[in-house]
């Protein structure tokens, strides 16, 4: 719309109809109400971050201890502990501690002794796997048969929470998905927006976007039940479910995202650009490739960035088609376990409020931050593109 905007202070929104709260109290109230409801989106983004990060906080601050073997103190030393020291020793929250009488505390101290007696005796048992050093760094676990130094093994006698295998898993599936989806989706976007006849275009765009309507659990099912065997026959690798299968299935979820954003960006380039090129004798493909594509480059880049965000966050496809073995391996044909699949598969079994539970929230928070940043970047790039095409910059 081309009407000049009224920017005087007392007017808001279209056509400057705003008479203040004295003239029309009902209107004023409604406007305030509408404004507050529209803040929901901001509130939700904020709450998502706060409440996912809140559960992860004890891990971030290094307050959780996942060691299987915590040595028990002899009775005379327990008697010397301050109330706070005793509370820490028993691993209770302030609220829980306050609700217990002397007898209960004494029995908890006994339980603690029993636990220490029965704990596994391996030298690794005293290690706190939930500390940052073990979350990210290597450790030569004494009971590891394969000699892996990066191990994610949340169940068992000794909890190992190394995140590196999960990062590698997500990286592998995402890379395959993008390598597969981006070229296909971009080529299709160029064809649909620049080369196809208008009547064909009207049909092609919604048809391609229909792929976005296939639920991810169905894509996962398709990867698991149909594509896995098909691709295995074609490539002859060993493990049926692996990063490659999951990546291709994931690509199916990424294609519609990259396609629609890139198509929008290409279409938003003014027709005059390509018409000028055509008038100067360029062929249709030259105009598309040399004029329209460079003009829309930021938008195309944003499409790839947002496709990346979709790929690292997709859960069901990877959960079903990747095999879910947390091995450190750079081979695409090994079974792999991603961040999202780990959360989905393990959260239901994790003890509420325990270290496993909190570490799963921690990787969820990391995922949120990663997608938040990619979205922000994609958004800013699209804004720049719009400004540039409208001649503001």
């Amino acid at each position: 719309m081309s009407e000049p905007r009224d920017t005087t202070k007392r007017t808001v929104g279209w056509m400057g109809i705003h008479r203040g709260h004295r003239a029309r109290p009902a209107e004023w109230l409604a406007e305030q109400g509408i404004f507050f409801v529209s803040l929901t989106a901001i509130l939700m983004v904020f709450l998502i971050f706060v409440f996912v990060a809140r559960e992860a906080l004890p891990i971030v601050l290094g307050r959780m201890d996942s060691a299987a073997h915590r040595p028990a103190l002899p009775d005379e030393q327990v008697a010397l502990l301050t109330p706070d020291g005793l509370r820490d020793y028993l691993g209770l929250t302030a609220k829980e501690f306050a609700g217990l009488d002397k007898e209960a505390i004494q029995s908890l101290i006994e339980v603690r002794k029993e636990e220490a007696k029965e704990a596994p005796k391996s030298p690794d048992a005293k290690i706190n796997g939930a500390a940052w050093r073990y979350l990210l760094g290597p450790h030569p676990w004494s009971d590891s048969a394969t000699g892996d130094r990066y191990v994610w093994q949340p169940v068992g006698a000794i909890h190992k929470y190394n995140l590196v295998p999960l990062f590698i898993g997500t990286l592998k599936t995402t890379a395959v998905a993008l390598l597969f989806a981006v070229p296909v989706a971009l080529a299709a976007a160029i064809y649909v927006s620049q080369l196809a006849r208008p009547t064909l275009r009207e049909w092609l765009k919604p048809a391609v976007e229909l792929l976005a309507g296939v639920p991810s659990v169905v894509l996962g099912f398709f990867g698991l039940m149909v594509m896995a065997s098909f691709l295995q026959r074609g490539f002859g690798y060993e493990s049926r479910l692996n990063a490659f299968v999951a990546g291709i299935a994931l690509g199916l979820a990424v294609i519609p995202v990259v396609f629609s954003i890139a198509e929008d960006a290409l279409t938003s380039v003014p027709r005059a650009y390509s018409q000028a090129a055509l008038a100067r004798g360029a062929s249709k493909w030259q105009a598309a490739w040399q004029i329209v594509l460079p003009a829309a480059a930021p938008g195309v880049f944003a499409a790839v960035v947002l496709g990346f965000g979709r790929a690292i966050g997709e859960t069901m496809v990877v959960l079903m088609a990747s095999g879910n073995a947390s091995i450190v391996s750079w081979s695409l044909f090994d079974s792999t376990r991603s961040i999202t699949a780990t959360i989905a598969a393990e959260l239901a079994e994790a003890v509420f409020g325990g270290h496993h539970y909190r570490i799963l929230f921690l990787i969820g928070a990391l995922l949120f931050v990663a997608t938040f940043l990619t979205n922000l970047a994609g958004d800013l790039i699209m804004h720049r593109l719009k400004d540039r095409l409208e001649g503001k910059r």
Partner: protein
Amino acid sequence: MTSPATISSKLDFRTRGFDFASFAFTGVTGLATLFILLLLGIILANVVWHGWETFSWRFLTGGADQDMFDVRKAGVLPMVIGTALRVLLMTLVVLPVGVITAVYLTEYANSTALTTRIIRGAVNNLAGVPSIVFGLFGLGFFISFIGRGLDAGAAEPLWGKPAILWASLTLAVMTLPLVIVATEESLRAITPGLREASLALGATKLETILKIVLPEALPGILTGGILAVGRAGGEVAPILFTGAAYYMRDLPKAPTDQFMDLGYHVFILSTQSPDIEKTRPILFATVLALLLLTMSLNLVAILVRARVRRKMRAGH
């Protein structure tokens, strides 16, 4: 002397004979488009082909009181009802909030103001949050924080456990951007003249929005609602920990009950079946039911949206 006609014919690529680059470029990009459609076709055809045999009226209306892994007895009625209920609850929440936000953004907000930009940024970001993170949020906020808060002092947890209410609210947060964007688009498609005419006749701004703008934007609002339902209907990750049940004898009766879900059932049948070969027909038929639900909704949304866009082009 060169006439304008010869100049234009010199610059016209068609006179140069067969243009291989042009042919190749159009061919490659066209094939990419075809490839995507082919993949979509293969998925749909495969599901229909393998699922059709088991997919029957009895399958659709069969209960879960029988063995859910028995091909002859399994049915999806409890899952269909569970999915429908959670989606309905979600719509009741997300539609008003989404429409009001869109009304604010198009009718009231000053598009250059900082608040407006932050709201838009938040909406865009919400659209990109991974679905599993919504699941964590539902567990951390709705169940642990609100639910357990409501339960404070109670012996048995009533609210502080997975329930259809919490699953629906989680999905409502997830689909909020879809509704906002679709409604906004249809609001923008309405010619300013309509609003001006209403105001000129003495209607207030609120009256104009309620009686002129919103009825006119109804198709777009419906599209947003349908898109949200289609998206939420197939989502599994957000409801994994917020309400979906592996098996339930009864249908959910209260908002605090858990529910069986079509998408979650697809996941169970494909990964936790006792005998994958035997349950394969049930699996394909269940996928077919899920696809019929989501794809038909998407198709309707696409058709309505195409109409809105045509109207927009005609109006401007």
